[in-house]
């Protein structure tokens, strides 16, 4: 087996990859909003969070790279499409509707928090230390995003309607966040933690905010054998975003600047 296959067959690595790939693709997609945020402060925030996401993905790829003997950039850019473990919610087109982009990020940030909490308790000290750092930085995102949700909830009807519509749209896809990422280890251990427990923690934290803000979003935990992006069966929009993200790398392998 190649070193890459060793990594892809490792259940623990798959959870790290799922999170890292979510953050990589979200950071890439969210970069489209730079210069286009609805207000200046949000433009800065959105770009800053995208920058954080890319660096957080790198911190996780560097950990995997050191563990499995693979360059972090190779992990990020040179895997087969089917080996990307991100869920396809992160690349769901937002059509430059800020409400959709905002809710998409809010849902992923809320998922990243309990996953990072679990990884900070890893037996692997290097991974635990890295995730403790990332958790603290992602907390700043969560605080900011939850604050927006509260502000929008107490605001005028137009904003309330647009956010609830976006929540309804995202709810149709949010379950895919919980897809089990490993193709060959499709059992409870493949997610490194109790799947239902993680799902409940994630959705409960979101519902606390939504209830306070006067919004609703419900979606079920998908079946254990649900098949989608996390298992490499990606939607066309992932392929498009991946092609764009890897364009420079493909055009000039090994380029530095």
């Amino acid at each position, binding site marked *: 087996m190649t070193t890459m296959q060793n990594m892809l067959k490792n259940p623990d690595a798959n959870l790290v990859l799922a999170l890292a790939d979510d953050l990589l693709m979200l950071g890439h997609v969210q970069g489209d909003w730079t210069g286009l945020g609805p207000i200046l*402060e949000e433009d800065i*925030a959105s770009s800053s969070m995208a920058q954080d996401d890319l660096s957080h993905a790198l911190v996780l790829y560097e950990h995997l790279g050191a563990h499995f003997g693979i360059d972090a950039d190779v992990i990020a850019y040179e895997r087969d499409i089917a080996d990307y473990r991100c869920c396809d919610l992160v690349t769901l087109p937002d059509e430059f509707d800020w409400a959709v982009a905002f809710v998409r990020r809010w849902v992923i940030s809320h998922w990243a*928090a309990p996953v990072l909490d679990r990884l900070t308790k890893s037996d692997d000290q290097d991974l635990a230390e890295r995730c403790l750092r990332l958790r*603290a930085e992602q907390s*700043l995102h969560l*605080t900011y995003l939850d604050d927006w949700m509260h502000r929008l909830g107490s605001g005028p009807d137009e904003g309330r309607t647009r956010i609830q519509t976006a929540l309804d749209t995202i709810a149709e896809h949010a379950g895919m966040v919980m897809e089990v990422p490993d193709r060959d280890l499709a059992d409870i251990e493949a997610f490194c933690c109790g799947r239902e427990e993680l799902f409940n923690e994630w959705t409960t934290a979101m519902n606390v905010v939504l209830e306070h803000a006067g919004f609703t979003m419900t979606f079920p935990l998908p079946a254990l054998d649900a098949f989608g992006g996390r298992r490499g069966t990606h939607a066309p929009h992932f392929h498009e975003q991946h092609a764009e993200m890897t364009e420079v790398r493909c055009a000039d392998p090994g380029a530095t600047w």
Partner: protein
Amino acid sequence: MVSHEGILSAVYATLADIPDPELPCSIVDLGLVEAVDLDAACNVNITLLPTFTGCPALDMIADDVTRLVGALDMVESCTVQWVFAPPWTTDRITDNGRKSLRAHGVTVPEHGPMQPAGDGTTPLRTSAIPCPWCGSANTRLESPFGPTRCRTIQYCDDCQNTFEDMKRLSEE
């Protein structure tokens, strides 16, 4: 023949003169330097802590350190290593660093234990931070994300100036 201590003090003096590229503060005053290790062959390894993982200045800082420390006569080679433990916090900023930042309109949260984040979130400091320009407490958070990863933008309603505040991260 320069003593072990002599080399170390020259290394520290060099580090104390290396500014953070984005702040009016040296990397020592900012609390980035965690350890300086010197072996018998005069190879130096410097352990640094990143402020924020996404800080684009990290590579520049590492380059400055390896170049300037490596250029010291008695140093054979210099390498830099970034580590995540202990996590960097604003508590690591020295009094000298705080003074310099404040003179440039950047405030730093007081030393002390972090407010417990019971719900898993770290509150951005939204209470009135004394304005570094006029001292007024009539200030408010203007933008939770600022010019760099580590700063928020605040506004003073009395002197009508903006200033920046270093973000406080949770500790465990």
